C-alpha cells in the first residue's frame, strides 16, 4: 500500500499545526464561528447532536495493522472505546472534546493518517473497490489512480471553497463495487480498442434529497489527461454551480439543469484551453504504482480447509458467505462483517480493531479495506489460513457469516448522533437484524441489501437499497418510508416508494412482509432485486397495504 514519503508527512504535520493555530484563533476571536466552521469541517470536525465528531480519512479504504491499532488507541484514549466505519470508507469518532482534537490529529499523523477534507465543501476522500488488487475482474489496481487523485485534491488552492461537497469514486473492475454511478464523478478504468488503458468518466450522480444516476461525460480519456480533465470539470462546476440554495448546489443539479451536452461542451472547451499544468509526469505515476505492486503470495496447499469445513459447519458457512474470489486461487478475499445480530452497523470496539489488526498482520499481508457497506475486507488470505483466521475473529464476535444478506444493513448514525437526523436509524437496523437472526433463513432469502437513512440527506444510501428505509419526522412522530428496487452497481437504479410510511415499531414486520412476498413470488435462483424487477411494485404494495385499504 502507499507509504508517505517525507514530503507527504510534512504536509500533514504542517496542516495539523495550521489547524492547531486555527483552533487558537477561534478561541481568541480572530475567527468568527462562521469563519471557523468551514475550516474545522475541512479538518474533519463536525458538531453533532451531543458532541463533536471527528471523521478520519482512510484513503480509498486501505489501512494497515499499525494504523488500525492507532485507531484503537485513539478510541480508547480520547473517545469511548469504539469507532464507527462509514459508507465512505472512513472512520468516525463520536465523542471527542474540542481541545483534544489537535492531539488526536497528531496521533493520526504518527501513522500517516489525517482528517483532511473528510467534510466541508471540498473534494472528499476518494473511494474505491474494497477488493482492489485482489479481484479477478479488474484491469489494474484502481488505487494507483485513487492515490493520484488523493494527492491532487489535497489542499487544492482552487477547489477548497466549492458550492458543495464533491465525491469521487474509482473502479477498475467489470463489476462495479464502488458505486461510481452515485458519485459526483465516477471513474471507470477501461481499455480502448487500441488496447490502451484510460478512463471512462461519469458525472452528476448522487443520493441525498435529489437522487440521480450519473451520466457519461467522456467515454475514453487517455491516462495522462486525468488530472487536467478533472480540473476542467471541477472549474466549470465551481463557476456555474448554484450557490443560492445549498440543497441545489451539488454538481448533479448543475448537470441536470444545463444538460449533460452543454456541461460536456464547457468542460471540453476548458480542458482544451488548459495548460495541462496538473498532469503528473510518468515518473510520479511509476513511483505511486510501485507501492501497489501485487504482493508476492506464496502458494499454499488448500487441503486442510476441507477437513476444517467438514468439522466446523459454521466455519464452512462463513467461508462460503464472506469469501470473495482472489486472483490467486489458493487465496481468498474475506469480508469481516461488522453487523453482528443486534449490533450497530459499522461499529467496532478498540478490542475488535486490535483483533482486526492482528488478523491483517498474520493472514492478509498487513492490509485491510473498509467497505462502503461498513464492513472490513482482508484482501489476501491464504485458504490454508482461513480456519486460524476464523478462530481469531470469533474471539471478538467478528465471525458473522452474513455478507450481502438481509442483516448486512447499511445505516447512517441517525437520531442517536446526528444533528440533521429526523428519525432513528441504528435501532431500526438492530431490530431488523434481531428479527432475521436465523442465519439459515437469511441464506435461504439470499442477497438482499437493506439501507437505512435517518433523514432525506440519504447518508444511509436508502435510494440504492434493494429495500430502502427513510426515517422522517411526521408531526413529531417517526415515520419510515419504504423504497424497493434500488441498486448501486453496474445496473444502478433508484428505489421506488411503496406508499405511505410506517411507524417505528412496524418496520421489522414490514420487512418480514416484503421478504415473505418475495419468497412466494421468486423463480428458481432469483434474488430479491431480480424478482422485484420482474414483477414490479404491485404485489409488494398489495401485501403491505391490503389490510389498511
Amino acid at each position: 500500500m502507499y507509504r508517505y514519503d517525507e514530503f507527504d508527512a510534512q504536509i500533514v504535520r504542517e496542516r495539523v499545526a495550521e489547524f492547531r493555530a486555527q483552533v487558537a484563533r477561534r478561541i481568541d476571536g480572530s475567527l468568527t464561528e462562521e469563519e471557523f466552521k468551514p475550516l474545522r469541517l475541512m479538518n474533519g470536525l463536525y458538531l453533532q447532536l451531543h458532541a463533536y465528531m471527528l471523521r478520519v480519512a482512510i484513503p480509498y479504504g486501505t489501512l494497515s495493522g499499525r494504523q488500525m491499532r492507532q485507531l484503537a488507541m485513539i478510541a480508547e484514549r480520547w473517545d469511548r472505546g469504539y469507532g464507527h466505519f462509514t459508507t465512505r470508507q472512513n472512520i468516525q469518532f463520536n465523542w471527542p472534546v474540542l481541545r483534544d482534537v489537535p492531539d488526536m490529529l497528531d496521533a493520526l499523523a504518527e501513522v500517516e493518517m489525517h482528517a483532511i477534507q473528510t467534510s466541508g465543501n471540498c473534494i472528499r476522500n476518494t473511494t474505491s473497490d474494497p477488493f482492489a488488487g485482489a479481484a479477478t475482474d479488474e484491469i489494474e489496481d484502481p488505487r494507483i489512480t485513487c492515490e493520484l487523485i488523493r494527492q491532487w485534491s489535497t489542499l487544492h488552492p482552487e477547489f477548497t471553497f466549492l458550492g458543495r461537497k464533491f465525491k469521487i469514486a474509482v473502479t477498475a473492475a467489470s463489476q462495479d463495487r464502488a458505486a461510481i454511478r452515485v458519485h459526483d464523478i465516477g471513474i471507470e478504468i477501461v481499455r480502448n480498442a487500441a488496447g490502451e488503458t484510460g478512463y471512462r468518466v461519469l458525472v452528476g450522480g448522487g443520493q441525498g434529497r435529489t437522487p440521480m444516476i450519473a451520466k457519461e461525460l467522456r467515454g475514453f480519456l487517455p491516462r495522462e489527461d486525468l488530472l487536467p480533465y478533472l480540473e476542467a470539470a471541477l472549474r466549470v462546476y465551481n463557476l456555474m454551480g448554484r450557490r443560492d440554495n445549498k440543497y441545489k448546489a451539488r454538481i448533479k443539479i448543475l448537470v441536470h439543469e444545463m444538460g449533460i451536452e452543454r456541461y460536456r461542451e464547457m468542460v471540453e472547451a476548458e480542458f482544451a484551453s488548459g495548460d495541462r499544468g496538473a498532469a503528473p509526469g510518468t515518473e510520479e505515476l511509476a513511483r505511486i504504482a510501485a507501492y501497489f505492486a501485487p504482493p508476492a503470495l506464496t502458494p499454499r496447499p488448500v487441503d486442510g480447509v476441507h477437513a476444517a469445513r467438514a468439522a466446523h459447519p459454521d466455519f464452512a458457512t462463513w467461508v462460503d458467505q464472506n469469501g470473495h474470489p482472489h486472483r490467486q486461487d489458493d487465496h481468498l478475499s474475506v469480508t469481516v462483517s461488522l453487523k453482528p445480530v443486534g449490533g450497530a452497523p459499522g461499529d467496532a470496539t478498540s478490542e475488535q480493531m486490535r483483533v482486526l489488526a492482528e488478523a491483517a498482520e498474520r493472514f492478509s499481508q498487513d492490509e485491510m479495506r473498509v467497505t462502503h457497506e461498513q464492513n472490513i475486507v482482508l484482501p489476501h488470505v491464504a485458504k490454508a489460513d482461513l480456519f486460524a483466521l476464523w478462530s481469531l475473529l470469533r474471539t471478538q464476535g467478528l465471525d458473522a457469516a452474513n455478507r450481502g444478506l438481509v442483516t448486512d444493513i447499511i445505516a447512517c448514525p441517525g437520531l442517536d448522533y446526528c444533528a440533521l437526523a429526523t428519525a432513528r436509524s441504528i435501532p431500526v437496523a438492530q431490530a431488523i437484524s434481531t428479527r432475521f437472526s436465523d442465519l439459515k433463513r437469511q441464506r435461504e432469502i439470499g442477497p438482499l441489501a437493506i439501507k437505512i437513512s435517518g433523514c432525506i440527506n440519504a447518508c444511509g444510501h436508502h435510494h440504492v437499497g434493494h429495500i430502502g428505509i427513510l426515517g422522517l419526522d411526521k408531526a413529531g412522530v417517526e415515520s419510515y418510508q419504504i423504497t424497493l428496487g434500488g441498486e448501486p452497481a453496474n445496473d444502478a437504479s433508484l428505489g421506488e416508494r411503496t406508499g405511505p410510511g410506517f411507524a417505528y415499531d412496524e418496520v421489522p414486520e414490514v420487512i418480514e412482509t416484503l421478504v415473505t412476498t418475495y419468497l412466494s413470488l421468486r423463480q428458481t435462483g432469483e434474488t430479491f432485486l431480480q424478482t422485484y424487477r420482474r414483477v414490479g411494485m404491485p404485489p409488494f404494495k398489495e401485501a403491505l397495504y391490503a389490510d389498511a385499504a
Partner: protein
Amino acid sequence: MPTLRDRTGVIPDGWTRAESAAEAVDGAKILLPWSEELTLPEAHPAEMLGLHVENSVSVEALRPVLTRVGLISIAFPSFSDGRGFSIAKQLRGIGFRGRLRATGPVIADQFAYLLECGFDEVETPERLDARQPQPQWDAALALVSLSYQPGYPGRRSILDARRAAQGAAPQGGAA
C-alpha cells in the same frame, strides 16, 4: 477604509473606485465596475485603468478588453463563495498579465490559495482588520510549505521536492 495587502504586507491603494470614466481626475488610476455595456475611455492607458467584476462574470466576455486594463478586481461576496479562485485561474490561463485583486471579506486562511490561483493582492473590509491583523496574514503564508498542484505556483511543488530528493539520494520505490 479597506486594507490592501500583497505578499509583502500592507500596501497603499493607488486606485480610485469610480462609477464612470467621467469621474476620473487627471493622472489618477481609475477602477470601474465592469458591465457588458461599459465603454472603456480611449484616453486612459492600460496601467491607469482597472475593472471590478462580479464573480458571476464570464471570462470570455472580458477577453477583448484584457490588454486595455492594468488591474482586475474580482468580488468575493463572502469568503465561502469560491468562484473567484476559478475566475483568477481562468484569467491567468487566457493570458492576463496585469494585477489581480480579490475584493471582499476573504480571510487570512485563504491568502496562500488566492496567491496560487493568480491573485497579486487582497482588499478586505476594515471590519476584518481588528480580528485579523497583518501578522496573521504573514503567518498564513508560512504554515503549509508544500503543494501537490504543480499548476498553481506558490508553495514549493512536492513533485519538485521529490525529484530533488531522488537526485540527492536515490530512494527505493515500494515500501
